């Protein structure tokens, strides 16, 4: 299902990252500065041309206007631009793509990279270009493989068709997530089925980021397992290091009770005011009521028990002192710091095997799993903590060969595990130290290392953002694993039986309902192949969406060409677009209240009710 989808050439023409600091002198060739260029098969001189010209013009305009260039348009291509610390990103899309969407796409892409790799400058100091190029490709392909052109316009999350899912299952998913949060080290998470969100506690941005890892792992597994059926690698648990921005983390750490109020109060100063965390399930809304009065509830305790590690980490991150920044990540290379020999061996081995790749291992893959358990001392929380190419993004792999066996080995090997994790943490801490020259209010420089824990049951995935030392807290791992395993299996079985929704008989109407807060889209424009029928709707929607974005006071609009009439309406939280198919009867275009175009609002209200869209 989730085959590696190559970026659609119609959607993205170019993407490149150019490092201006590498091309200072007159003699420095442009290609020295090209960190990544998509499409990779582009002739080198064309790469040179685009990078040098765009970066040059970008710099010149930035100087003239004392502000960074954000978009740059050519006759046949439009670029979203980001300039930061000598880096120059450009994402070029076709000219029909709304500018807001192109900018949003670039924003997502860069954030995605930083989420898994940490600050860009640091990543490039620690990794080879080839390694990182592979990651850019992967992230790009993920972002560009939207379900439909509409998803691409709104850059929204892929979700289950909720009208087709038993609400009890959604409730169940939400409960699983809540149950996991009982462990104080678990911040929040989401549940994904076949690459679509079932339930999430994370903000839309974070959910999107987390989903990339899940999909990559799935792809890797598919590839390594070759032809074997998906069922053969059952359930497995793994983890990887990730980087969060301080606002993101702050948001995750604040208890859900106060989130609503805090998001209101902080909405002015917060960088992400409207994208407050709203669970897409029923779970969050009602649960916020009883909890504040109950100090023994797991959520409150999560807040109250300040772990020593946290405060330490917080300090180092939130208030970077000059001495720390002077230590600089360049001086303490993580490779040099790698502690025990077994650790090193493991990492080397891992690097050789899956060099710079997400590591995925299933314990159902018996031969390998067993050999690993036997061959290496640390069997349970098999501290396969190899640095992901040394950039601080780490990967851990767990093996629960059997619940009872686990507990034993864990207790036996606990010390080693702890040590390794701690070592890892020191590395991470050093790595996140801000660069001397990026100290100024720079979101990238203050990224905080966290861990993403992923538990897969066939097509169902539980992804949790956890504190980094979750990994050495075997009890917590056990608890999370066992508390969710049965429920996940059950949920998976149920979701599996849901047959994909029968495609709507086309011919009646088209609609798209976009939820700006949860960043989700409900639509009956299906699939990637948008035919001639849907094309006018997609075009009108994209225009209206741009218009809604640029004009805050605009509430509704009807636009009509000779053959199409589309109605768009929005409120603070939603945008809805509707087109009656069959085409309005031909008319002259002169004002006429009997014109069918003007009955669209009432039709939309009527028709969309059954899709759960209430236009009041």
């Amino acid at each position, binding site marked *: 299902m989730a085959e590696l989808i190559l970026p659609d050439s119609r959607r993205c023409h170019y993407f490149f990252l150019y490092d201006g600091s590498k091309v200072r002198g007159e003699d420095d060739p442009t290609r020295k500065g090209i960190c990544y260029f998509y499409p990779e098969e582009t002739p080198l001189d064309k790469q040179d041309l685009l990078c040098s010209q765009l970066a040059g013009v970008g710099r010149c305009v930035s100087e003239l206007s004392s502000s960074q260039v954000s978009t740059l348009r050519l006759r046949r291509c439009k670029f979203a631009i980001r300039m930061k610390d000598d880096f120059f990103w450009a994402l070029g899309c076709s000219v029909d793509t709304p500018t807001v969407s192109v900018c949003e796409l670039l924003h997502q892409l860069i954030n995605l990279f930083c989420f898994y790799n940490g600050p860009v400058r640091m990543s490039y100091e620690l990794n080879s270009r080839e390694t990182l190029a592979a990651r850019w490709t992967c992230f790009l392909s993920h972002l560009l493989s939207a379900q439909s052109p509409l998803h691409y316009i709104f850059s929204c999350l892929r979700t289950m068709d909720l009208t087709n899912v038993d609400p009890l299952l959604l409730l169940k998913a939400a409960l699983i997530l809540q149950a996991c949060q009982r462990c104080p080290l678990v911040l929040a998470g989401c549940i994904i089925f076949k690459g679509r969100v079932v339930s999430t506690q994370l903000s839309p941005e974070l959910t999107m980021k987390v989903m990339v890892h899940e999909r990559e792992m799935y792809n890797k597994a598919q590839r390594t397992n070759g032809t074997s059926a998906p069922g053969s690698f059952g359930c497995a648990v793994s983890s990887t290091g990730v980087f969060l921005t301080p606002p993101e983390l702050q948001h995750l750490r604040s208890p859900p009770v106060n989130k609503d109020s805090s998001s209101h109060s902080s909405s002015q100063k917060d960088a992400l005011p409207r994208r407050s965390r709203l669970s897409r399930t029923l779970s969050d809304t009602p649960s916020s009521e009883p909890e504040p009065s109950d100090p023994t509830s797991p959520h409150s305790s999560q807040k109250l028990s300040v772990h020593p590690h946290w405060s330490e980490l917080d300090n180092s991150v939130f208030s970077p002192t000059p001495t720390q920044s002077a230590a600089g990540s360049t001086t303490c290379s993580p490779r040099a710091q790698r502690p025990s020999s077994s650790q090193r061996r493991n990492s080397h081995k891992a690097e050789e095997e899956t060099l710079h790749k997400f590591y995925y291992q299933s314990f159902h893959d018996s031969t390998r799993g067993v050999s690993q358990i036997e061959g290496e001392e640390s069997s349970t929380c098999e501290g396969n903590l190899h640095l992901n190419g040394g950039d601080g993004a780490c990967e851990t792999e767990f093996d629960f060969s059997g619940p009872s066996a686990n507990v034993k080995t864990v207790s036996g090997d606990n010390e080693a595990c702890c040590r390794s994790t701690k070592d890892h943490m020191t590395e991470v801490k050093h790595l996140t130290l801000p660069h001397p020259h990026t100290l100024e209010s720079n979101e990238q420089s203050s990224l905080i290392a966290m861990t993403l824990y992923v538990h897969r049951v066939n097509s169902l995935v539980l992804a949790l953002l956890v504190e980094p030392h979750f990994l050495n807290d075997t009890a917590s791992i056990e608890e999370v694993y066992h508390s969710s395993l049965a429920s996940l299996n059950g949920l998976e079985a149920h979701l599996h039986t849901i047959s994909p929704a029968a495609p709507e008989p086309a011919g009646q109407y088209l609609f798209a309902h976009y939820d700006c807060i949860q960043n989700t889209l409900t639509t009956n424009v299906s699939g990637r192949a948008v035919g001639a029928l849907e094309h006018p709707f997609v075009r009108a929607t994209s225009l209206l969406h741009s218009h809604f974005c640029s004009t805050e*006071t605009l509430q509704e609009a009807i636009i009509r060409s000779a053959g199409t009439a589309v109605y768009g309406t929005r409120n603070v939280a939603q945008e809805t677009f509707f087109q009656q198919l069959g085409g309005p009867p031909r*008319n002259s275009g*002169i*004002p006429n209240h009997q014109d069918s175009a003007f009955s669209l609002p009432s039709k939309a209200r009527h028709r969309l009710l059954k899709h759960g869209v209430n236009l009041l």
Partner: protein
Amino acid sequence: MKCLLIASESAEILFHWTDQEFQQNVQEKYSSSQEEGEGLPAFEDIISTLFAPIIISCGTMVYRQGDSYTSFTTENNHIYALCQFDECLYIAVNGDGEEKEDDLRRKLYVLRKMTEVMFGMVTLSGSLLRKELRPQDTEQRVRLWKHLQSLVETYNYLRESDQSFLVEAVERLIHPTLCEQCIEFLERRLVQQINSSSLVERAGEEVLHTFILVHTKLLAFYSSRTASTLNTSDLLTLIIMAQNMYPSNVELDEPSPEDAESTSGSGPESFYTPEPSPSSRDSSSSERPARGSSPVFEFVDPDIQMAEDSLHTLEIGPPDPSTPRRVFLELKDGQLPMVPHSMYCLPLWPGITLVLLTKVPNIQITRSVYSFLEDFTKLEKCLNEGQAGSGAARGQLNMHNTRSKLDKFIRDLGPSELQCVQLLNVWTEFKNRAFTRGGSGFNKDLIPLCKSMKTRLCSLYRQRFLTDTGSSDGPRCLSPALQERAQTMVQEKLMDWKDFLLVKSKRNVTMVSYLEEFPGLVHFIWVDRSSGQIIAPSLNITERTTSELGKGPVARYIKSKVWGLVRTTRQYLRKGYSTVTLRDGDFYFCYFLWFENENGYKLEAGDIPILPDDSPPIGMLGYDYYRKLLRYYGKNHQGEAVKCYELLTVHLGVIPTEIILQHCRQLASKLWEPSRNPLL
């Protein structure tokens, strides 16, 4: 924070205009990068240095990527729009949020249109246009740039304040009786008298069109029977030029009859100085009544003052007011572009101007020059594309035809003039290369010769119509006495009407007269695109006047909404949507575009072409979009005169939609009636 510039391919600045804020900003930026003690270079040099990388990169992209920049935006919302016209790159910048990209692109097209009206076919030759826009002689350059700069200012002002320049259509005063009387007067008395005066007195010229402007509104327009129609684009450009010469401050209160004389319409932003002209016709002009008839177009507007400063404020005598402006206008619906005319702007009273457009003698050669230019351009394109076989053969075939015509043309010119000799030389060389047996024939080697033929033809045209280096025939214009006579005649005719007209021009159509019939209607704009006419209630937004929209801020808010609505509907029209309704805040906006035949029968809505974002602006001034649209639509309606109408309305949001739509319908038919009155 606004800037406008024209640059050549070699990054030479051919023209620039900036507002004070932009200039200060740039100078500060430059001085900070400058070393201590060094003086600041000339502003023009700074601009040139700062923009050079952009201009050069633009050239590189065109050359190597076959694509060119169309716009940049920055995080602090500065917008840069770029347009390549032939060999010149036009750039417009805005950094104060007052203009959107579409406005900038529009400004570039308007600037382009102005150069065309000012220089005619010379704009077709890159090298000649470069010389024309940037004369070697500093004084000449200062004078020209100042003129162009003030035209840009005038256009900016009109687009921001005048609805007819917002939608780019002509507004006329709604007073059918007076209008008719005036047209009759212009026809029977004025034009007849001028055209029947002695050939010497009118220097062989003949009045083709004449019109009376009250501020920017048309009171009467008359075209002589032999003239072909003046298109809206040209008419709007001429109004800008007239406004530039005699700026009217619409925001002034109506002058009362007794002080009209004393104020001379000069508000805080304009003043009139006695004419210091030392020209040869000094004596004649001094005879003319001094009262308001010899204004010098000098603003004390700070922006313009800046522009002057940037040119080192050279003392330049004002041009003689009786000297006409040479303008190049389109004839026959664009089939014959850039035909030279003389434009006489005769101020009657402050705010009221009489404009005469005359045919200059010997314009026959423009038709030939234009067709030769077209032939050589086609041939060059053919050769460039390397169509060796059939293409070149066809080109050759055409060229044989051109050859005989051109031979005859040169013979008829008489080889006495330098330009003719040069043309003949190049043509002889061309013939030797192309047609003789020993020559290389039609291949790429001929391209440079094609180019130089074009340059020669353009420079012949230039010498004939642009540079009036006083030939033996004496001054080629209507004699000052004749001009004065015309002026006095119309003044006498309109004497009793003048104050009424000045007031009427500000309250041409009032919303009050519509309120009873259309409760809840706030404002509307109706445009007949086939004739380029607008009907819209006046928007008075000054503090002193109270309109139906209320005073000051409220009116200004509605005005900004109307301006925004026009911008929005253009975006949708560009993408093929001819009907738009929007609920925005407390208002409900509607926009409709439809076609009718001549009898008012509504034609079926047709598909409207979908254009890219960087396509020419939608309007009639810089680029006549509607003419193209009518032509496109008319393809399916052969033999029928197709009319195109637009209606924009602003209603209060509380009015039910059905009522609003009914209003629109009724309004459309109500406004259709007065538009039947002939404009010309």
